[in-house]
């Protein structure tokens, strides 16, 4: 009986090791660009007014103090009586 368990144990261990796969990491190899040989198809024009688009600048306004109540004045007036 004990022998049977040993065999079963070995069998399960071998299954567990068998699941691991070997992962090989490989980095991308260098690519060479011959910049001098590159060709861009299109028309060559000089930059001018037409090429600069005028756009509205985003304006950030300060949140300036704008009094909308006199609550503190009311409290102060009552205090000033006594």
């Amino acid at each position, binding site marked *: 009986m004990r022998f049977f368990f040993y065999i079963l144990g070995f069998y399960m261990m071998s299954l567990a090791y068998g699941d691991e796969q070997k992962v090989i990491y490989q980095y991308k190899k260098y690519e060479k660009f011959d910049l001098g040989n590159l060709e861009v198809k299109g028309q060559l024009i000089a930059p001018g007014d037409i090429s600069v688009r005028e756009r509205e600048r985003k304006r950030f306004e300060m*949140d300036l103090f704008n009094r909308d109540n006199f609550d503190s004045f009311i409290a102060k007036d009552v205090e*000033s009586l006594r």
Partner: protein
Amino acid sequence: MKIIFYILFFLNSIPSFAEEKKSFSSALEDKKYYFSALNEFFIETYNREILNSDLKKLESLLFYTGIELLEDYDSELLLKYPTSSTRFILGRKAFQEKKFKLSLDHFSKIHPSHRYYPEGKLLEAQVFNAQNKLKERGDSYLECQVSAEKNESNAQNEKIKRYYRMVFEICLVNKARHHFKMEEYKQALIAYDRIPKKSYKWPYLLLEKAWVYYQMGDYNRTLGLLTTYKSPLLDTYFFPEAEYLAALTYFKLCLYEDSLIIVNQFYQFYRPRFQSLDQILKKNRSSQNYFFNIMFRPDEELIKEGEFVDQILTRMKKQTRFSLDFNAIFKIEQEIKRIEQNEKGVIKDKLLPHLKEVKENLITKINYNAKTDIFQFLDSIPFISQELFKLNLEIISRKKDLVYFNKRLIADRSRGDYSNIKRSRFEYFWKFDGSFWADELGDYSMGLKSNCQTIRNEKVEEE
């Protein structure tokens, strides 16, 4: 035998009528030692049943001493004496502790003919305001005004008349302030205009009216009202917020240079003076009487600050609170003198320590109030400084935008025209060309045209 007994009994009873013993407090009251009598009255009555006659006596004593002394008394003790004066004090305490229901209960029990009724109604309106009960608030303000006017007309003394006038005006002005908060600007102005120019409150209201006009977009009137503060008659009234509002209004009219003049003036002139004043006063922050003393005799360091300190202190001395407390100190000093001159040693030993203690308490109170007022004023400077700094940045940003868009403002600084002045059909108009500051204080208006329209620069300068 029986007849003899009756005669003896009758004869025996005569001295008891003649020498009916008065209480010590009554004896003191007869001698017009009211502050001492008040203290003795509480000692005599606090642990016995309170009678109607006691309440009458308390009211009569408080008529002379004022209720300021009761502010330090325990509420439980004051509850034993249900008079209008004590209810006023208790209602006020409850309001400060935010016990609104209790506060309203006390205020509702102040008798309508009592001298504190108008002020009670003013405070009641504050409670309703805190509870957001607008209808009740309006009713209380109205009752406050009616009763204050009635009391003013019946008052014998000029000081008392002034007190009721002040209560009336605060109730009226608070209504205006509530209209302002609700953005009902025209109604706010109607209420503000009911305050006469000779009123103590009037100089303070110029700033508030200026804000109302600002919110209505009448910038010329805002600037005109703020100009009033430059009058020699109002030199004790300096409000940093008024400087800010003027700069902000010029900014709204796109008169950037004018706005910058005010900003720079504040930074160069006022801020350093406030800072040095702050340093001097901070050294004495924990003193019990420094601020009381400088109200009458500024020390050498403060004198160096010149009329500036005088202006702040003068304004504080005009407050009703100061006047009441100082008047109480004066009366106590008179009582101390009379006791020292007229009474024997035992009585002196019994009365004087208490009176001196009360006097010290009042000095501490004035000192505390003065200190609070001064530091609240000084603490407002950094806030206004910060807002002016933000305004400065905004002006620089706007100017930068003009350059960026190759534009300029439509006019230079030579602008202004009578046609820009808005006025109602009840307002007359006089030109102000080198005239003397006079009756028209507070009715000025500038004639500036908004400079916010921009035009594109036609020529771009080339190198």
